């Protein structure tokens, strides 16, 4: 019975922490390097500025999305415990971001 003893309160705290992490990540501006294009017009760096912005935007969105899913599933697991059922039913697969 590996899941016995897990307090739903701990899982909810982890879900809350995860959500807060997602909220914090949302405040990071992924387009911060875009103005390089304005600072160095006609440069090679300028050509890559928007691409870096796109890249970071995608990655950070994926991270936020993963965190939100995770928070939801942690909350579901807590509910499951509250309901006296096994937490193994909560599915955490698919939370791993596509990139490293």
């Amino acid at each position, binding site marked *: 019975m590996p899941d016995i003893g897990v307090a739903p309160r701990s899982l909810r705290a982890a879900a809350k922490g995860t959500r807060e992490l997602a909220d914090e990540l949302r405040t990071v501006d992924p387009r911060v390097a875009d103005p390089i294009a*304005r600072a160095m017009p006609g440069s090679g760096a300028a050509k890559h500025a928007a691409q870096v912005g796109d890249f970071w935007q995608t*990655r950070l969105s994926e991270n936020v999305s993963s965190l939100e899913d995770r928070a939801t599933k*942690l909350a579901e697991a807590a509910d499951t415990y509250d309901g006296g059922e096994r937490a193994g039913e909560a599915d955490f697969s698919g939370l791993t971001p596509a990139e490293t």
Partner: protein
Amino acid sequence: MGDWDTIAGWSPAELKAVGDDLAAELKRLRGTEAELRDATTPAEWEGEAAEAAKRSLAEIERGLLHRVEEFAMLRAAVDDAAERLERLHGAMHGAAEFARAHDFEIAGGVVRPRPGAPANPDPDVRAHLEAQVQQIVRTGLDIDADLTTVMRSVLDGKGHSDASTMTKAAAAGAESGQSTLLDPPKDATPAQNKAWWDTLSDDERKWLIAQRPELIGNRKGIPYQARHEANVNRIALEREKLRELRENLKDWTFVLERAKEVGIGKTISDLRGIDEKLKALDVLERQAEDNSIVSLDTSGDRVRAAVAIGDVDNADYVAVYTPGMNSAVEDNMNRYVDELREVNQYAQDMLAGTGETVATVVWMDYEPPKTSVDEIVEGIFDDRAEDGAKRLAAELEGLEASRMDDPPERITAIGHSYGSLTTALALRESDAADAFVSQGSPGWNGDDGLKVPAGELYNLRTDGDLIAGSGWYGGSPENYDGVRQLETDDAVTADGERLAGSEGHSGYTEADRRQSTSEYNTAAVITGRDDLLIEREHADSR
């Protein structure tokens, strides 16, 4: 639009603002470390779901560490680019000002005479400006290339460190975001070297002197103080290399391998020359205590070097003295420096009250023949002089280039004996010298083609100097038209000071604290004091 204008249009201030914004976002990212801890699943939770939840958070954490590293990397690269660009814009402004002051302008990266400027502006200035423009563009493109490389690295998503904390990830990113130093162009001219040096920061220069002294020590066109500092750093390294070679040459397997690689002759001469080279390094190490080692090369059969007395980078008058046959650093650099220090002081005395200064380089960056069995024959030919002349010409061009922003009043090339031939050959390649003093010369292969202003060729010959009278190399300079023959006998200056006469082939400059007529005349040429010169009255009296 050309590269020059494109680079001029880049804004270091805006770039700096991007760097600041990146720093702020990086701080925000790193601030998630606390939330990351709060998001950790309870330790007591076990099972498949718990493991999956842990894995998912680990993956997210890994992604965040990568973002931290990327932000830190780009922030470092942008800050670095902003700093370099600001310095580069300063160099562009300086070049434009310099051009204006010398009747040129830089338009779209092209150097051309300013409209309305007098005809035939100085070609040396033009070459200097063109090298500057070329280097500025080169550096500008390098700034862009370095920044672009970092951005590509972000996009590739590869090469992240294995940093396990945000602090470590930020440090790793900051380090990999630093740009690499741009080397000078291959086979750079002195003007290109100066332009390259001018685009570096003080920290970059210090780093190069400490970490890559071999790149700096003999580089013509950069400040002599930098060359000195680099060469001082090289002495220990060169000594170590020579000692290692000496040890290796005791091993026959190594000797045979080396003979295959560089030839048996070179291998034997290496072996024979190591002790002399080590002695030469000792001499230079001692010289570095009071003077500057502005050139050092151990790659030939003998050590080649140049020692400067005084501040070549700032002196108003600079002399470059080239000795002749039988000169070797280990044997007579000390003596030459002592002798030329006296001449330098006499020249300085002539400038009393003016605030102007003199510096003298004792230049032995060549291997003149020795009166040994295998080299005496070479003395008859001028191959070694020609070889030395190429380097001496480059040195003179380097001196001129290094002082382009603040040219000395006068550069005087002095050559003794075979060194006068070497100097004369160099002065057919370089127009940097304002005067040429020849002492005890066996000839200059005639006086045609010397790029020295008219009336600024001087010859000194003492009584009984048979070598000077030999005329081995195109006749004696005593017989050349347009060469002013200066007195070497006892004489009295206009101020009534008694000067000693010099004798023999090696008596033109002696470290005897007694001013000779030839030293006085040499000093007068160095300082451009035509009014003090004591010319010889009877050219045929020797």
